[in-house]
């Protein structure tokens, strides 16, 4: 492993020999409905991406995850030359959001990423009546908005956004990098594989990998069972993330 120190608080560590070719960086951190986490895990499994690094910080809980007898960092990076996927198996403490997104933005700039895409959910109170969740998009620049318009993506026109993905848009803006967020209508506090499937379909308009979500939908109930504990952790940190503001009306609404 070679360590890339991106500041004092969060360290992004890449495996030796990893090459990047202007990758699209896809971020799926735990948030409402675990949409990003479920989608990111599915993409990694489906595409057979290799683990290429991890993220560590004293701001994260002192927790490691064990898979097949090997301890691993819960925040890991997977991918190939063209696509990088960032995911987490633990909830992100609110105090770590700014240092984490700043470190991630520094790193995606360093690897010369052409676009950063965050996958997340948009809580829908009537989700139970929605057969196929819609996906809305937010861009951080005119260039990013053009990327969305080119793909006929529906925009989240007005409102507030909160959480790691919202800060990621800002941090990328500060570094003059294009970033977008894809938000699928979801259950706020229940894992939502249906929303994850919708967000992957939208993401694939950028990645063009032909990711089939059939298996994700078929295994939805199994995924919901496995995701219960992470959903519980994530829901507990939601008020501190100011997630409630996403339902509010901005005073400068147009």
């Amino acid at each position, binding site marked *: 492993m070679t360590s890339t120190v991106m500041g004092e608080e969060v360290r992004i560590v890449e495996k030796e020999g990893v090459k990047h070719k202007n990758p699209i960086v896809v971020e799926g951190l735990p948030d409402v409905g675990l949409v990003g986490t479920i989608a990111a895990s599915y993409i990694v499994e489906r595409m057979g991406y290799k683990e290429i690094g991890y993220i560590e910080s004293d701001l994260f809980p002192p927790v490691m995850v064990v898979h097949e007898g090997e301890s691993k960092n819960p925040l890991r990076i997977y991918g190939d030359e063209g696509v990088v996927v960032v995911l987490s198996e633990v909830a992100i403490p609110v105090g770590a959001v700014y240092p984490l997104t700043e470190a991630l933005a520094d790193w995606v700039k360093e690897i010369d990423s052409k676009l950063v895409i965050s996958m997340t959910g948009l809580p829908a109170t009537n989700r*139970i*009546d929605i057969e196929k969740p819609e996906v809305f998009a937010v861009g951080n620049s005119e260039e990013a908005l053009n990327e969305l318009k080119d793909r006929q993506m529906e925009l989240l026109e007005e409102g507030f956004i909160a959480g790691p993905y919202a800060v990621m848009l800002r941090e990328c803006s500060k570094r003059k990098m294009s970033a977008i967020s894809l938000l699928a209508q979801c*259950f706020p*506090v*229940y*894992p939502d594989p249906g929303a994850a499937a919708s967000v992957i379909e939208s993401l694939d308009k950028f990645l063009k990998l032909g990711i089939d979500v059939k298996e994700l939908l078929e295994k*939805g*109930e*199994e995924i*919901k*069972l496995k995701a*219960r*504990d992470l*959903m*519980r952790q994530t829901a507990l940190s939601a008020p501190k993330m100011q997630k409630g503001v996403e339902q509010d009306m901005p005073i400068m609404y147009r």
Partner: protein
Amino acid sequence: MGIERRIIRTTWRYDGCLEPLYEVEDKEDEILVTFDLPRVRKENVEINTTEDTIEVIARMSDAVCWERWSGIQKRISFQAFRKQIRLPELVDPEKVSASFKNGILRINLPKARKKVFVPIE
């Protein structure tokens, strides 16, 4: 909460029951409780209410088996969800209604206290 409970904060039990995810919302005239019950069919859900509690027992259509996991280093299977919740206000158990769609159980519990119209003089 005892020390052991704080360290071993499981959402499953050795009797084959999992604790479901749930949400309790105060909706002015009623308490709305929802449960996420994957692998459950409507006919296998049992709901019991009192004035201040609600209990849900839901049998899964297929048991879920996990192996080599955490403190359980052997095969363990779960057949049902079970949860009892203490309600934030007294409700009228006779007027409780429920619906089940796409694995989400929704229970409407009308509050026991009555609303009185106050005229403005």
